[in-house]
């Protein structure tokens, strides 16, 4: 499966978005990790029997599409929120907004 963001980048986003209510990009990141796990799981399952193979391949294909979609979504929301997309650093404005809301 093609990965646009590596584990370190995604973890960095989650690490900065600590609290649930101000962590929508982190929710997307979490979904990406879950999709990756689901894909890996299906890859392990493929090869058991002819019928099973079709089931697991179907899930893997759908997961791959969902993963691509969520990665695109992450790229877009990071852009909208103004994150540093090279170092994955939360913008100062967003930090202040989060701290103020507490």
């Amino acid at each position, binding site marked *: 499966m093609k990965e646009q963001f590596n*584990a370190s980048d*995604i973890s*960095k986003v*989650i690490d900065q978005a*600590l609290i*649930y209510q101000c*962590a929508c990009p982190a929710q997307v990141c*979490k979904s990406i990790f879950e999709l990756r796990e689901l894909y890996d799981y299906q890859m392990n399952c493929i090869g058991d029997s002819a019928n099973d193979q079709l089931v697991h391949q179907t899930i893997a294909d759908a997961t791959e599409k969902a993963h691509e979609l969520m990665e695109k979504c992450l790229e877009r929301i990071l852009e909208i929120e103004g994150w540093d997309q090279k170092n994955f650093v*939360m913008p100062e404005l967003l930090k202040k907004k989060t*701290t103020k809301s507490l």
Partner: protein
Amino acid sequence: MKNSKIMLIDSDSYTSTVLFEELSVHGFNNAHRVSSGFEVPIALEKFAPDIVIFNYHFHQPDSLTLCSTIKLLSPESATMVIVSPGPALKAVRQWAKETKNIDVVIEKPLSDERFYMMLEDLVKLKESTKALTNRTELLANLVPQEAMLAAENHFNNEGEMFEAAILFTDIRRSSKLITTMAPRQYFEHLNTVLSAQSKEITRYEGSVIKYTGDGLMAVFKGMGRAYLALRCGLDLAQAAKDAALPYGVGVAEGLVLAGLIGDSAASGQRRQFDVIGATVHLASRLCGIANAGELIATKSINQRAKLNAPLPQPIQSVAIRGFDTKVDCVGFNLQQPQMQEL
């Protein structure tokens, strides 16, 4: 519960601030923040936290060793690690499994409900553990060590037989003393005397089985029991001359039976640990005939103890109440000048 001391370790100043303020909003006001691993040992010592919350960051994998530092320096503290899902979560779970240094692992982003529910559960667990420890410590002072072991090992009703040296002390003319002294004053003196005796017995590896009102009963087990019991008895007799309440000492050795007295089948019935047998009666009787500052022991235990000094006075064929045959004894009167063995 909200008074629990929480230490927050987070190297990122932004997330640290967010979490610290979040805790405060939820009423956890007794929190302390640490940003670097170097500060952790000193902070643990000064703050003595109930709970340590460690915000783990993926790009600092080595920081997990801090969890071992926490457990090593502050084993009483519970450790909660907050971690991002994915590879970081897997690494932390693996570390927790291998080292057993992490009590709770919780995933980011934190949902209020889950995080505070877990935090409150952890606080409750800490409080109940602390209460249990305090109760155990209190019980350990009230109940002989042997009784605790017997209860832990689910002693059966048959008890355990073993060879032991038994030591008794008893205050002389206690009835007269208690009628001439104010009860509180007598109690204070009694407490001082018996506490000092108990300390000596522990020093000689003996165990106080019970306080008998005006004295105590102790047991000495193991290979060196005769020597230790007699040496201890001599020190106690020596101390009797300066004690607020004068007392005598008796020592005998032989087979005894230890166990819990009381019905184990009846729930709620009080049970008491005791050591019984003819040896116990003999030591008690010898103590009864000893004068203040005097130790009376059986001749046989004195021979086995092989003490170099002081030399005892032989007391031949002593008639002991309740015993058919007379017993050869020795007496050490440490209130009089003693002949030293050359």
